[in-house]
């Protein structure tokens, strides 16, 4: 985070309040939209925002989006960051405002998403007195952010907010929280227009990571391993998206003719319709991706972390493979699986270095590529075709015929999330926006609002479930209020489908707490009440193509509920804690083994 000599900031030396400085740093950092909710201890900063926007043309203003709940603001900021690659910003009050932000902060930490949260705090002399709307934000956030500041020295407010942006976007990105006591917001001092806090160790580590390149020797070892391989496989994670390395990954894969599997977070890093794409691996990955993982003899992990949804049983994961692991975070190397070759650094630089070093490397992997394409043909995703009831998969397939891989798809968490990951085409990075690691229900709707605001040029679709949608349903009102033309597709199965699926498989069909039949909610009426001009519900196959077309083509925010078969399950499924050998492909996907493993009651202790 070294600062180059820049021309003096036009406001340098001007006296302003801490609150003004916060807003001015936002503007300097290129923030266009602030998501947030005003309240007692953050009033000065909201006032500064109002004054900043006064007498400015709309294009120069900092756009403010007020959610129904601060959690919504956090997910909007996160959706914005995920869709654009820029830092998402939200601004909330102390106490309950701040604690409502804990979930999106943890969610962003778990998915490595750069967001900055500024919270108001009670004045310094009141901290620790159990004051009205006081919460120990530093302590609470400490365990779950990349970094948290409590601004106790008022003269450092400007540098602290600027540093928060630098930390959020550098290295492995993540959320940063700045807790600002009200009296610090009211402090008046000269604006500097530049300057960061000194972070002795962090700055050096970032510099090393940024400058780290694959040495000749390291490249040689890598290509010795590749030269011995017959069945190499790229395993791409969210790190590719964060590093903006999709172009390099695609070039690498094409250059050496190596197929690619991606994690949920890595979807879009390669075009899912490409010959070398095997789509998603893992618990609900495609059968052919998981077969490729089982069969490969050299697995090249880039920006992925062998998490439990990918490697449920580490000991038998990619059992025949040597492992190469590239990651910006040294702590991920060897955390789960010890690699045979590793590089800590930027994924884009690493892939470029390897391509340069291997420019003359030649090895024929066409037999392997043919084999995985045979797997693709013989074990495709499939589902029930003989039911009267609408199947969720056919709804998404039909929608995909309209969007053709060019929409940004946001999701809640559960079955619909997995179906969306499985059945849509994704041509570009940042086109699937989903809560991968934390698995936060309620993510989809606010994230889609943030994504649409960040990418007004795109069709943004929130594929949601009835359980997930309920969690942040207040934000439907927000979408309409700000004229955000999201397309909200509700796949309603009147229950928490994924948990129901686990209860069917592992808990003797005892549907504890997961059925929603006793709930009376009329989602269409709710959408209408919130001002949706397009709000429909269908449950008939014949209506589907037309309804979806009109839904996507509608100019403003649109809501479409589709009543689906509540017994639909997500397949394939690698049970929790199990290996890929134990993958269940279900009744509609052909397995390559004759005998499917028995689903047995497994110890709930083991089910994560």
């Amino acid at each position, binding site marked *: 985070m070294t600062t180059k000599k820049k021309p003096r900031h036009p406001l340098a030396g001007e006296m302003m309040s801490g609150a003004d400085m916060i807003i001015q740093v936002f503007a300097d950092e290129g923030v266009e939209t602030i998501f947030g909710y005003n309240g007692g201890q953050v009033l000065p900063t909201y006032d500064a925002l109002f004054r900043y926007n006064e007498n400015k043309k709309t294009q120069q203003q900092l756009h403010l989006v007020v959610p129904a709940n601060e959690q919504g603001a956090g997910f909007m900021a996160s959706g914005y960051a995920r869709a654009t690659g820029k830092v998402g910003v939200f601004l909330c009050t102390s106490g309950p405002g701040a604690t409502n932000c804990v979930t999106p902060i943890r969610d962003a930490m778990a998915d490595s998403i750069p967001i900055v949260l500024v919270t108001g705090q009670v004045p310094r002399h009141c901290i620790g007195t159990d004051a009205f709307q006081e919460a120990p934000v*530093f302590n609470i956030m*400490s*365990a779950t952010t*990349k970094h948290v500041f409590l601004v106790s020295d008022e003269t450092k407010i400007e540098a602290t907010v600027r540093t928060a942006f630098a930390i959020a976007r550098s290295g492995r990105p993540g959320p940063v929280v700045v807790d600002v006591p009200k009296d610090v917001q009211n402090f008046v001092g000269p604006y500097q227009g530049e300057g960061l806090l000194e972070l*002795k*160790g962090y700055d050096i580590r970032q510099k090393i990571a940024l400058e780290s390149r694959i040495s000749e020797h390291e490249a040689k070892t890598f290509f010795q391993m590749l030269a011995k391989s017959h069945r190499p496989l790229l395993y791409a994670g969210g790190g590719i998206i964060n590093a903006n390395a999709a172009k390099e990954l695609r070039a690498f894969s094409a250059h050496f003719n190596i197929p690619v599997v991606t994690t949920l977070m890595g979807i879009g890093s390669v075009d899912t319709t490409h010959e070398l794409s095997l789509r998603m691996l893992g618990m609900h990955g495609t059968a052919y991706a998981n077969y490729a993982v089982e069969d490969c003899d050299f697995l090249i992990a880039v920006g992925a972390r062998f998490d439990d949804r990918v490697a449920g049983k580490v000991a038998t994961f990619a059992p025949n493979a040597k492992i190469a692991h590239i990651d910006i*975070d*040294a*702590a991920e190397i060897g955390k789960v699986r010890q690699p045979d070759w590793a590089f800590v650094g930027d994924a884009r630089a690493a892939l470029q270095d390897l391509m340069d070093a291997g420019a003359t490397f030649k090895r024929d992997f066409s037999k392997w590529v043919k084999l995985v394409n045979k797997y693709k043909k013989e074990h495709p995703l499939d589902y029930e075709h003989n039911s009267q009831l609408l199947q969720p998969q056919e709804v998404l397939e039909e929608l995909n015929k309209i969007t053709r891989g060019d929409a940004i798809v946001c999701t809640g968490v559960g079955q619909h999330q997995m179906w969306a990951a499985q059945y849509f085409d994704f041509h570009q990075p940042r086109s699937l926006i989903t809560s991968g690691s934390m698995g936060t229900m309620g993510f989809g709707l606010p994230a889609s609002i943030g994504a649409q605001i960040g990418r007004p040029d795109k069709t943004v679709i929130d594929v949601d479930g009835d359980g997930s949608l309920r969690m942040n349903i207040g934000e439907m009102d927000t979408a309409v209020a700000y004229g955000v033309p999201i397309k909200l597709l509700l796949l309603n199965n009147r229950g928490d489908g994924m948990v129901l699926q686990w209860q069917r498989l592992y808990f003797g069909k005892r549907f504890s707490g997961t059925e929603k039949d006793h709930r009376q909610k009329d989602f269409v009426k709710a959408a209408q009440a919130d001002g949706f001009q397009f709000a429909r519900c269908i449950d008939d196959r014949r209506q589907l193509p037309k309804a979806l077309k009109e839904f996507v083509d509608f100019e403003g925010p649109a809501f479409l509920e589709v009543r689906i078969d509540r017994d639909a399950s997500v397949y394939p499924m690698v049970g929790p804690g199990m290996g890929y050998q134990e993958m269940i492909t279900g009744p509609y996907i052909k397995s390559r083994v004759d005998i499917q493993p028995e689903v047995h009651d497994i110890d709930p202790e083991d089910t994560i």
Partner: protein
Amino acid sequence: MKRTISVLVENHFGVLARVSGLFSARGYNIDSLCVGETEIPSISRMTVVVRGDDSVIQQIMKQLNKLVDTIKVEDLTEVDFIERELVLIKVSVNGDRRREVIEIASIFRAKVVDVSPSSMVVEVTGSEGKVEACINMLRPLGIQELVRTGEIAIARSAK
């Protein structure tokens, strides 16, 4: 295996909370954690004694290294180092036990720093082994109270 990890951190608000929070959040057990200012007032040193196999220690060091406030992490167990701990032990002394306490203290080059009709306070400094040995010798006499600082450590200079 016991490991002594030395961590240089920024000496400011909340750093101890961040470090101890990391240990609890990731389920690592700490034997002891000592923190104090270094020769540079803006930098603190934490000496953390932990137990775990190599992969656990590796993870702990890497995770510590990720904290924004961390300046440097060093596993002292890998180098030649000096470890010291200070312990205050309040021992019961009825009758002629007083002499016994003084004798044990002198063997361990410990000091008697407080005396009352019913107790004596012994101050002992040394490595974990020495301190443990001294405590074990005093235990049969009746330890009323015991306070340990936890271990601090410094690497030896190359000779």
